[in-house]
């Protein structure tokens, strides 16, 4: 059996290329089945008007059974959105990327969820434990066991 991960990502990529991405989301880079990048912006009225962020997806061979590692890119002058669920190193505290991940979710579904997470933001602020977390954070956000509060997507 060919790798589920490769077949699944090939299919997702094919659909992105033929049907296009949802509004506000653009494929930036998908050269292989290891890492993809998207730009993401919030359309309409929001606290992030005019801001464009870059999302990095990293896949291992267990995708989609296990979730992809997803974070905002914070290198090359890029920054992560100031948001109560987004750390300044780009890591995101979102339950769908952790214990509520479902293998039927797709890369685009994740992008849309994060887009709506930004759209509904009421106040631009970092998580209260941002400094402490960033100091000790692992490179791969999947290695962190986040404890989700009632508002994380």
């Amino acid at each position, binding site marked *: 059996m060919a790798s589920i991960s490769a077949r699944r990502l090939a299919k997702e990529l094919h659909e992105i290329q033929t049907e296009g991405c949802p509004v506000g989301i653009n494929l930036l880079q998908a050269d292989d089945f290891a890492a993809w990048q998207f730009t993401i912006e919030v359309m309409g009225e929001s606290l992030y008007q005019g801001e464009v962020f870059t999302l990095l997806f990293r896949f291992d061979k267990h995708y989609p*059974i296990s979730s992809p590692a997803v974070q905002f890119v914070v290198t090359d002058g890029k920054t992560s959105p100031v948001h109560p669920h987004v750390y300044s190193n780009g890591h995101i505290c979102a339950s769908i990327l952790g214990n509520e991940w479902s293998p039927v979710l797709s890369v685009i579904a994740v992008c849309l969820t994060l887009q709506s997470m930004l759209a509904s933001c009421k106040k631009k602020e970092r998580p209260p434990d941002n400094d402490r977390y960033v100091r000790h954070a692992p490179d791969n956000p999947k290695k962190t066991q986040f404890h989700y509060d009632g*508002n*994380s997507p």
Partner: protein
Amino acid sequence: MSDYSLSDDDYYNDEDMFDITQDDDDMNMDDYTEDFKVDTNSKRKSYEIEYESLNQPAVEKLMQQDVAYIIGILGVDSSIAARLLRHSSWNKERLIEKYMDNPNTILVAAGVTAPEPPSVTSPIRTHIGDRRTTRSASKIISTLSSSSKTSSKASSSSYQPAQTRLKAERFVCPICYDDSSDLQTASLDCDHLFCTGCWTTYITSKIRDEAEHCIRCMAEGCCLVAPDTFIQSALAGEGEPTWARFQELLVRHFVSCNPNLKYCPHPGCTNTVSCPAAASKSSLTTVVPAVSCGARGIPGSPEALTSAVAAKEHYFCFGCPIDSDHRPVVCSVAKMWLKKCADDSETANWIKSNTKECPKCQSTIEKNGGCNHMTCKKCKHEFCWVCMGPWSEHGTSWYSCNRYEEKSGTDARDAQSKSRASLERYLHYYNRWANHEQSAKLSLDLYAKTEKKMEDMQITSSLTWIEVQFMKKAVEEADKCRMTLKWTYAMAYYLARGNEKELFEDNQRDLEQAVEELAELLEQPIEADAIPTLRQKVTDKTVYVHKRNEIVLEDTANGFLEGRWKWNARVEGFDEPDQADLV
């Protein structure tokens, strides 16, 4: 958000701990035990606690009893009873109460039945309290996939890979996008259909990678929990080891829900210890629940099959996370001490070094055995590795290597000299604490070399197997006593000054001296013709050391039962210390 945990190493590391029991582990050796005159049938001592070791099938039997009880009361089938019990953390009374109150609520919460009405386009699932609706991810998926799922109503969630579920339209697995005509599919009662390959991969990953025993449907937002029969079918064949792991996870969960039980923390071990006497927190101020699951070494590894000292018996504390026997000190004090050591690790690191300078000629001395009686190779000066004092004075009544002589109050007036005095005090205890651990390890290393030689001797000389075993028994006893000694330093650090502490330290000193003498004997060169004499000496000393250890353990344990020990710091579960005793 806001809270997270990175996997930190635990602050204590007790890989060097091991212990021996008084019964013989591998062979019936009547004349051998006769040598040691150790009473194997005596009744429980004050420092021992009553407990029972259970293997996995024994715990599974307990689980089945609970399941049978629930089946009898609620009239549900065993698969449902099991899922209800797991959901209720095996609290039977609460489960029955909730079920009587509203069966549907708990059946839904336990993932047995789908909530009604089943919402086809559920919003992205958020946590309780967040009612924000977002665009449906299920919809996103169906626009992504070239066809949507179809299935006939399945009668049950039993794992029945069959094409009969498919209608004319060809099924595409929403996870792997496989659309082959012979694709086997399965679903739970919710009818969320996936190919069996994806089910197997998913279930394997949940069990293997996430150690999860509660396996939900793969569909987004679907909360149904797969029954055991479904999981077993998905893992049939190549998945057998995963199925076994799943059953282990169920046992672990059951054990963790029951305060009378604790799972053996030693790697690879699947035994459980039952110890109702230490189930309550309040019992832990009067007793140290050191228990053993009975197994030795790493199960399945070759070392466990040999009688090597390396295959240590699985001792651990029932009352706290310390995975070794920390007698004679109670859990709360042991934990305080470990925390203090972790906090001060940098200050104390230098002590662990294996080399020091000779106090007389300053040449470098390396310690490569467990004995603390050092003789400088260069100037022949004999000194104590721990206090660096002359060895000749050790063992005399006026010299105490173990006791910390508190400076009189006038010495420490300003804050700086106070903090220096407190560091000195701490280092005194830490030094001895760390040294016993290190010495025990060095003794074992040394013994590993000796053991081989002893075995060879058995072949080349007229000595029998039993006659060469005395060293092993002695090494094990010395190691056990060093562990007691190690923890007595944690205890002494927190004991309030006074008569009781002095008596404690007298016992500590006597044991320490005896152990050092035994350790010295163990480093004697082994020659075949000298063995009978050495054997007699070592055996006598082993018996003596064993007695001294009993005295320390027993007296300390009695002190806890009588409430005799007073502390110089606030200790959880004990009375507030006297102001004058605080340090």
